[in-house]
């Protein structure tokens, strides 16, 4: 357990230092969300209706932005070799890295959501609903994205490949995340149904992600 705790601590520490990815993700999220009203126009009713989708899309892109460094940074400096050789099971090490990434890059997105909700003319209920769905849904984005990050690790320019690999995998999360937020705002569907499916997607990715990532790391190392 000390090994995994050390890994989580290290990754968070690197992410919040200068040049780390934590702040970049939030700034990107902010920029995308702020730009959106300029593109759509000053129609408040339209913004309210599109708000949850915009926030979800921003969060998806922002989490993808920093995800490609999840394993490549460790691969480039040789740390990944030592992590693979370590006594901690690689699956757990992958899960620890994803957890650290989510804490450093995913959680700030959720904290920023209420502020960005104001820009999109969302009321308190709607903002709370979006924040809640993001809280439940972003772990799924991180843990499925980790599979792509592990596959792309040995390829040069893997970051571009990552987007192509990961975005299709995140479609279900996006559908049910936005559906649950919309249900809380306008109905007619009940909030519980899509929200439960979103929770289920997250739980599945928590289990499948580490195993798939560890398997691809073992085969990908060369």
């Amino acid at each position, binding site marked *: 357990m000390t090994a995994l705790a050390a890994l989580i601590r290290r990754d968070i520490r690197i992410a919040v230092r200068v040049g780390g990815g934590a702040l970049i993700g939030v700034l990107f999220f902010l920029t995308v969300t702020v730009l959106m009203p300029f593109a759509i126009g000053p129609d408040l009713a339209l913004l309210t209706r599109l708000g949850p989708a915009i926030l979800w899309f921003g969060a998806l892109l922002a989490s993808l932005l920093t995800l490609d460094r999840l394993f490549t940074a460790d691969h480039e400096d040789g740390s990944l*070799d030592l992590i693979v050789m370590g006594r901690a099971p690689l699956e757990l090490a992958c899960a620890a890295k994803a957890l650290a990434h989510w804490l450093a890059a995913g959680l700030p997105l959720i904290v920023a959501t209420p502020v960005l909700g104001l820009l999109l003319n969302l009321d308190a209920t709607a903002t709370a609903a979006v924040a809640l769905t993001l809280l439940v849904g972003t772990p799924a984005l991180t843990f499925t994205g980790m599979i792509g990050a592990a596959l792309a690790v040995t390829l040069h320019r893997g970051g571009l490949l990552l987007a192509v690999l990961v975005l299709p995998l995140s479609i279900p999360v996006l559908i049910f995340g936005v559906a649950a937020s919309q249900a809380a705002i306008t109905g007619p569907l009940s909030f519980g149904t899509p929200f439960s499916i979103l929770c289920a997607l997250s739980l599945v990715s928590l289990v499948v992600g580490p195993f798939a990532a560890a398997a691809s790391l073992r085969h990908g190392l060369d």
Partner: protein
Amino acid sequence: MRLSGRQIDCIRGGRGVFSGLDFETSSGEVLAVVGPNGSGKTSLLRLIAGLLVPAGGSIDLEGGEAELTLPEQSHYLGHRDALKPALSVHENLAFWRDFLGGKIGELSQCLSAVGLGHATHLPAAYLSAGQRRRLSIARLLVVRRPVWLLDEPTSALDTAGQDLFVGVMREHLASGGIIIAATHTPLGIGARELRMGGAT
């Protein structure tokens, strides 16, 4: 302890690097892997470290801890230093100590042993190539592993650093360790040679 490999074949990127390689070494011995560039020295070390899968043959460690695999009992010192520029010297070493399962409280001692006692709070980004290598060597000291796999361990080290490293290796051998080192320059320590064939 005895570490041996029999009839190892290595294929990388569809090209045979070497085949039918045998080696054997035991406690207190250094095996120096020598040969021209591209002869598969690094590949052999990575095979032993479990980072590559051999196309054929087997590698066995006798007399080690039965429930641990060979990679879990090995230190691998590769070309890349496994250091994070954003973290300080102390934080880098503390992470590897915790991750690899070393004992608490030997850090400053190990850092002084490799001559980095004065730079513990410096970010690793500011270290020179030789200092980075010294910090990697400190990793070998802070966690005990019986098998050391060293890839060009003395590159970037100055004369004092090389002498220091010879001392570190002697200590490891005296405690019954095994060292396999791929090298172009003499290690400064009595070693059996494993000569790899030329690239064909």
